[in-house]
């Protein structure tokens, strides 16, 4: 039998329907892989029994010819999706022992379509971070070996503090790691400033942040409600398209969820790009940008051109203000959303004498350093006397950022091509300890997309000089994810094939 964990989601789907494998076999193979990869720390909870029960039920439905679109396919779920009766803590200490009595809409769509849950995936605490190092459950190690490290050296580092091993990025670090290390066929993730796309770039996987409103936010632990959006990480654009079709769709429980039919995204893969116009925004050419990032970007444009697209230079003049504006809007919304953690209704409770003491002690013990920092910034920019100078101004700048994109799209541009990240993956413990802003700069190319509510897809496009994956980002018109899948597939086809990291951790 072939290596079941090496199959793509699409191939596994076919093998299940052909009856050449069973969901129980497929699920077992992934549970074994998870067991051997404990050191990577991608999963914070494994739901093995439930997975095997679901797999059996899927096999019965497959045999009866009643298979759903994701029937029998084992997936990982980011820890911020509410899963009924199962560990859901957004990897924060303050949600200690929380097991929701309800299911998120996105995951309920996956189970409706027959998918199997393997467990919950590690992430930065409340999705605040770019390296998975802010998780209460500790950092995740990327399956990619640090340059010049031997497998033995790396394996030994897994048992320690993991310093020097590569981060899988964040906040969806567990999702990206699990997909890249073949611990699940695909995973749910979420993206507020780049949390799907940066980890996908760092691990050589594909990720899409859909248009704001494409997926329901009901049952996702909230970070910044006007920016948060669900999306998948998978190993191919096709697998991402299959996932998104199930995840997306109208939900009466989320009033910001878009009410329009979900297209068959998979049908967009392989469509011709002839006649499409691709914009190259000059403001993304940063001072001091690494030569290899710039070279990869030009190469990506050449691939799209060779496939028949027209490449044009475009301008998005307010780009440089997006990241600073984000660090006002996102913490402001977070400080409001995270006010609910009070030690009374769920999660951690630390006594502090009176009621205010209870709140203050619970929140001091329950939140990690990065979350505390952002809550304090958010509280400050919303406080009396500063609201207009910071928050209202940032929201005005957001209008300008969105207008930049609208102008470019109105001029006939179908999608915009940019680098995904300023560099390849960095090491655990390497960034942000002295200055939090150093870590924030990771999102410089991705955050504009959240500020404007647009869809963004990252596909692997090549390797750095040190042999690590690099990605390119495609930005589309609102609700035109299909064009991104079409273009992403061209990049995937044109780029040199990535070799999967060998399982040095097992």
């Amino acid at each position, binding site marked *: 039998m072939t290596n079941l964990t090496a199959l793509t989601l699409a191939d596994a789907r076919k093998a299940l329907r052909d009856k050449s494998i069973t969901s129980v076999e497929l699920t077992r193979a992934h549970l074994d892989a998870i067991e051997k990869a404990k050191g990577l720390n991608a999963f914070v909870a494994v739901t093995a029994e439930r997975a095997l029960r679901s797999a059996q039920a899927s096999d019965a439905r497959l045999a009866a010819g009643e298979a759903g679109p994701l029937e029998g396919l084992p997936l990982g779920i980011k820890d911020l999706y509410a899963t009924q009766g199962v560990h859901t803590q957004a990897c924060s200490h303050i949600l200690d022992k929380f*097991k929701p009595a309800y299911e998120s809409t996105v995951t309920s769509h996956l189970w409706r379509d027959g998918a199997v849950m393997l467990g919950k995936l590690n992430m930065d605490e409340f999705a605040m971070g770019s390296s998975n190092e802010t998780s209460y459950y500790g950092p995740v190690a990327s399956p990619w070996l640090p340059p010049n490290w031997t497998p033995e050296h790396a394996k030994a580092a897994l048992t320690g503090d993991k310093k020097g091993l590569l981060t899988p990025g964040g906040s969806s670090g567990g999702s990206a790691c699990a997909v890249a290390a073949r611990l699940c066929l695909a995973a749910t993730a979420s993206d507020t400033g780049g949390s799907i796309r940066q980890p996908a770039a760092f691990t050589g996987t594909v990720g899409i942040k859909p248009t704001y409103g494409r997926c329901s936010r009901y049952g996702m632990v909230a970070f910044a409600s006007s920016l948060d959006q669900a999306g998948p990480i998978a190993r191919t654009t096709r697998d991402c398209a299959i996932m998104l079709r199930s995840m997306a769709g109208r939900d009466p429980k989320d009033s*910001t969820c878009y009410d329009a039919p979900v297209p068959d995204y998979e049908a967009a893969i392989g469509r011709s790009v002839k006649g499409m116009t691709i914009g190259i925004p000059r403001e993304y050419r940063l001072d001091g940008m690494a030569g290899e990032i710039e070279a990869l970007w030009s190469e990506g444009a050449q691939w799209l051109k060779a496939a028949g697209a027209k490449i044009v230079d475009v301008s998005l003049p307010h780009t440089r203000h997006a990241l600073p504006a984000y660090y006002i809007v996102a913490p402001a919304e977070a400080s409001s959303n995270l006010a609910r953690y009070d030690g*009374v*209704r769920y999660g951690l409770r630390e006594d502090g004498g009176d*009621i205010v003491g209870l709140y*203050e002690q619970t929140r001091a013990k329950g939140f990690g350093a990065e979350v505390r920092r952002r809550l304090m910034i958010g509280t400050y920019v919303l406080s009396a006397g500063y609201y207009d100078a910071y928050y209202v101004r940032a929201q*005005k700048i957001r209008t300008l950022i969105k207008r930049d994109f609208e102008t470019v799209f109105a001029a006939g541009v179908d999608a915009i091509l940019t680098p995904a990240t300023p560099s390849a993956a960095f090491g655990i413990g390497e960034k942000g300890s002295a200055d939090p802003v150093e870590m924030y700069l990771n999102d410089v190319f991705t955050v504009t997309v959240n500020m404007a509510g647009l869809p963004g897809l990252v596909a692997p496009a090549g390797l750095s000089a040190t042999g690590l994956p690099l990605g390119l980002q495609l930005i589309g018109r609102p609700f035109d994810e299909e064009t991104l899948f079409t273009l992403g597939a061209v990049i995937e086809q044109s780029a040199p094939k990535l070799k999967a990291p060998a399982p040095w951790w097992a």
Partner: protein
Amino acid sequence: MSVDQATVRRIARLARIAVEEHEIPHLQGEINAILSFVEELASVDVEGVEPMTSVIPMKLPLREDVVTDGEIAAKVLANAPLTENGFFLVPKVVE
């Protein structure tokens, strides 16, 4: 703009996060680093620009004004650290 230590204490109080006195200088440094990072926004011309309220223009959906949920007190309380007689338990707030 930058914050002084008194402001850091005030923000912590507003955010309902207990902060030890020895953490104040460090927090002040971090908050000021972030404030200096966002400082450049003060120079952007936003004259006549509407602040964003909805990133995707959408009509707020309305539903029938009927009860769709409720009578699930046990579920609501299931995750509470302390409860009594079907209520959340908190320190005494009214003398």
